[in-house]
Structures are given as C-alpha cells and as structure tokens.
C-alpha cells in the first residue's frame, strides 16, 4: 500500500514545490558562499570575474582583517557578551525567584512592573540613555553596553525563567524550609540546578542578542577602542573601501562564533530563538 519514500517527491505538484524550495535555498545560500569565496580574492580578481573561483587563494586577507582591527572588535564583543550573560543570568533568575516567592499583591505588582517594560522598544530610550551615560561618564566603558543590554533583555528572560520556576514542585522546597534552609539556599541549591533547560535557553538568546546588537553599541558608546563587531565592521568597511576581500574576510570571521554555537547545540539554539518569539 505505502509507496516508497524518496527525497524528491514523485507527484507533479510535489515536484514543483520541491523545485521551488531548491531555488529558494540557492537564493539564500549562494550569496553566503559567494562571500566566503570572494574573501579569498583581491579586488582586481573580484572586479574581473565576480562569479569565478579565486585563481589564487589569498589566506592573507584573513590575517590582514584580523590585524587591521577585527581582533580588537572580536575581543570587545566577547567581553561584552560574557559580562551581559553573567549579569543577566544572575539578575533575571534572582528577580524571577523573588517574584515566585512574594505572596499577595506585591508579587503581582513586581511582575507587572517587569512585564510592562516589554512594551518598550530600545529606540524610545536611546536618547535619554545616551545623555544619562554621558553625564555619569560611563559612555567610555563597556558598561555603556552591558547595563542597557541586561535591562532590555530582562523582561523576556524573567518571564521565561519565572514560568519554569512556577512549575517546580514545592515538596523539596518545603522539606528544605523544615530543615532550616534560607531563601538563598533554596534558590541556589534547589531552583537553579533544576532550571538548567530554561537557563540554557536564556543563555542562547542572550549570546545571540549581545553578539549582534547594533543600535546601542553604535549610539551609546563613545570610544573607538570599545567597538563591538557589528559597529566595528562598519568602520572597517569605511576604512577599507576598495579592499573587498579583506572586508569580506572580516565579515566571515565575525559570523564564526555564532555558527559554532549553532552547530554545537542546534536544537537548543532554535528553541532559544523561538522561545517567546522575540528576535534580537
């Protein structure tokens, strides 16, 4: 009864759709392959033959991109991403824990105050934030990115972590209370270890956000030595107008970390980006 399944559909409509998906895949993949290919060429060989393979593979484009600034941007991005991640995980999980422990109206009020922030887009706050950070002198430090990043990722993270905390059975907690455990011990020894799945989701969302964030990084930071990769690439392009190969090498380098994270934990990654359905 059952027909043998093949990769390519047998029916005409199925085949047409399959072809359509193939074309769509080419439209998506080809530009990326082209970037990788061209990142090994010099300007003249891109100019003479846009489509061709490099005659001579210029690995030097990569080392030039790295020494011409990408290494600094890369380091900055790593520092900002890691600090944002650590700060956010701590602040979001304590806040979520606090909300689940608060009894009565206060818990509800705190949660609402957090959730309302979700209605706010970063664009609305960026001018006052700029003035605020400048007036306290933080605009020349990494904190000019880290603190706003934590603040703007907090509502979504708290929402996800809280909904996980609420589902944790109360038995262990009650037993711990009888044994005289403090709130901090309950949080640190029971809730956090049990919540690894949701914390890893939040981790991926945060890495993705902090690595790619552009608006705050370009406006709030007033120091060329603190540029993260998204901002640095712009400067890089302006500085190397005709050296397309080197610019493209820089672009490829900047994508590698997230692609590695994706390859290592693709299931988690997709869950991280679809949880809460809020991208970047």
């Amino acid at each position, binding site marked *: 009864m059952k027909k043998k*399944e093949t*990769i390519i559909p*047998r029916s005409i409509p*199925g085949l047409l759709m*399959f072809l359509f*998906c193939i074309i*769509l895949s080419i439209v*998506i*993949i080809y*530009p*990326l392959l082209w970037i990788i290919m061209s990142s090994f060429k010099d300007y003249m060989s891109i100019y003479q033959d*846009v489509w061709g393979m490099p005659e001579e593979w210029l690995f030097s484009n990569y080392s030039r991109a790295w020494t011409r600034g990408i290494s600094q941007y890369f380091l900055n991005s790593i520092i900002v991403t890691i600090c944002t991640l650590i700060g956010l995980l701590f*602040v*979001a999980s*304590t*806040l979520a824990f*606090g909300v689940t*422990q*608060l*009894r009565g109206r*206060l*818990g509800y009020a705190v949660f609402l*105050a*957090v959730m309302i*922030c*979700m*209605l*706010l*887009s970063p*664009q*609305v*706050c960026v*001018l*006052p*934030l700029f*003035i*605020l950070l400048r007036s306290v002198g933080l605009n020349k430090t990494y904190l000019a990115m880290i*603190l*706003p990043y934590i*603040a*703007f990722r*907090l*509502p979504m993270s708290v929402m996800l972590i809280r909904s996980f905390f609420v589902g944790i059975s109360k038995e262990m907690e009650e037993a711990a209370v009888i044994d005289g455990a403090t709130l901090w011990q309950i949080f640190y020894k029971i809730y956090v270890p049990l919540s690894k799945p*949701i914390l890893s989701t939040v981790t991926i969302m945060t890495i993705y956000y902090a*690595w*790619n964030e552009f*608006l705050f990084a370009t*406006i709030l930071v007033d120091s060329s030595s603190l540029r993260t*990769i998204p901002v640095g690439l*712009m400067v890089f392009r302006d500085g190397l107008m005709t050296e397309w190969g080197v*610019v*493209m090498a820089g672009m490829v380098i900047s994508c590698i970390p*997230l692609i590695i994270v994706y390859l290592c934990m*693709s299931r988690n990654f*997709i*869950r991280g*980006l*679809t949880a809460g*359905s*809020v991208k970047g």
Partner: protein
Amino acid sequence: MNTRKKNLGAFIFCIPGLLILAIFVYFPLIENIIYSFQGFSLSSTSKEFVGLDNYKELFSDPIIWQSIKNNVLYAVISIIFQVMFGLVIAAILEDKVFRKSERFFQTIFFIPTLLSLTVVCLLFEFIYNPQMGLLNSFFEAVGLDGLTRIWLGTRDTAMLSIIAVSQWQSFGYITMLFIVAIQKIPSDLYEAAIVDGAGKIRRFFTITCPMVKQMFFVTMVLTVSGAFTVFNEPYILTGGGPGTATMVLSLHMYQTGFVKNRMGYASAIAMLIFVITAVLSSVQFFSFGTGKEERE
C-alpha cells in the same frame, strides 16, 4: 508576621533587577517624555520649555510622513513575504512528501538568522553594487541588461531594495516559528480530514490555518513592530537617502538628535515610535500573552 518577613526576604531578591529596570528603562522613558516638551542641544547647558511645539512640528514635518509611509510599506511587505509566505512554506515543508528533505531546507532557511544584521547589510551592499554587484552581474549574464540599475541610489528602488534585505534574513525565522506551531497540531485532525476526503489545500485552510492562529498573531505583531522600529538597514545601506527616499522613523529620530542636534524634537519623534509600538505590543500582550505557545 511570618509571611511579612518572608516577603521581605523575597523582595530583596527582586532589588537588583528592579533597580536596573528603574535606571535603564523607566527613568529614560520618563526623561524622554520631559525632553519632548523641551528644546535643547547636546551642548546646551539649559533646557528651554517649549510646550507642545515639538508635537506640533511632528504633524507638519514632511519627513515624518515620508518615514511613516516607508515604515508602513515595510510592514505590508513583511506581512506578505514573512508571515503569509512563511506560513505557506512551513506547511509545505511539514507535508509528508517532504519528510526526507524537511530538515535540510529548514536548516538552510534558518542560516541567515544566525548572521548579524551588519553582516547581512554589508553583504547586500556588495550584491547591490552597481558596477560589480551580484544582482546586476546576474541580470547581465542572463541577458536582461535592461533590468540593471543603481539599486540603492535610485528613488524608486532604494526603499524596496532595503526591505528585500529584511525579507531575505527573517523569512526563515518566521517559517521556523510556524513549523514549531504546526508540529503541535494533533495529527488525528489531519487523519480525520483525509478520511473525509479533504485535499491538501482544503486541509491547509480548514485545519492548519485555524490551528496556528495564535502563532499567526504573534508573528504579525513581531513583524509589524519590527517594521516600525527598523533602523540598522537604512542606517547602514543608505543613511536615509537618496534625498529622504529611505527615511524611517528611528533613523529620522537619530539624525534629528545626533546630526541636527535637536534633542527635544528627536524625543518627540521617539514618543511617536513609543505610542505606535506600545499599542502594537500591548495588543499582543493582553490578548494572547507573548509566545505562551512556544514556551517549554
């Protein structure tokens, strides 16, 4: 008494988070409201109260209307190409005939989501390059020389070219959201429909569409509010030009504040963005709750 003590302890856990939100979200929002009634520049020491002047200017500023028009165009095209088209592609990939190839296509469509917007924008700058960009070379190679143009430098094509960048990047993400939603539909619904003799298209409209209604709604709000806050693409690719052809609200706000140095008026533009996006997200927030569906 005991509850009160416990509440105090629990509240201490909330303090770091609440402080950060107060300083970096609530305080700037309030400041922004105050600024929008003032006139000042970044270097000025005093702020002059100007009443509703900034808001009056909003309504007579032709660039605002141009920006809103572009934002709306952005939203409409994103709804068609990401939400509608994404749903159809998700349904196709979830069909049985694609069982063997689904993961392959899914992975490929998702790849652009991994790249940062700056990288994608720079990539399209190379694609749109008039002399040696991929797009013009492609048209020349297939003999359609008439279609080549200066994509980002011509009034008619600049905005559409910028919008195309987002479609390329985000459609796979939206498709992925729909795939997640479709996979949650109980399969006996489809089996029952097959027994009743419903064809594939019929099943799409009578089962798939109603069952992913909530996700449809989430993605709509997501793309529309994304369209009204878009900044990076026009900032990187055209800077709003040629003329004001690709100006959008956030970019207009940025240029008014940091280039023309009129912070008061820029804050009024920010308030306009605030009202638009807050209305959109509260619709989502209060009627469905953000992404409750996708939560584990």
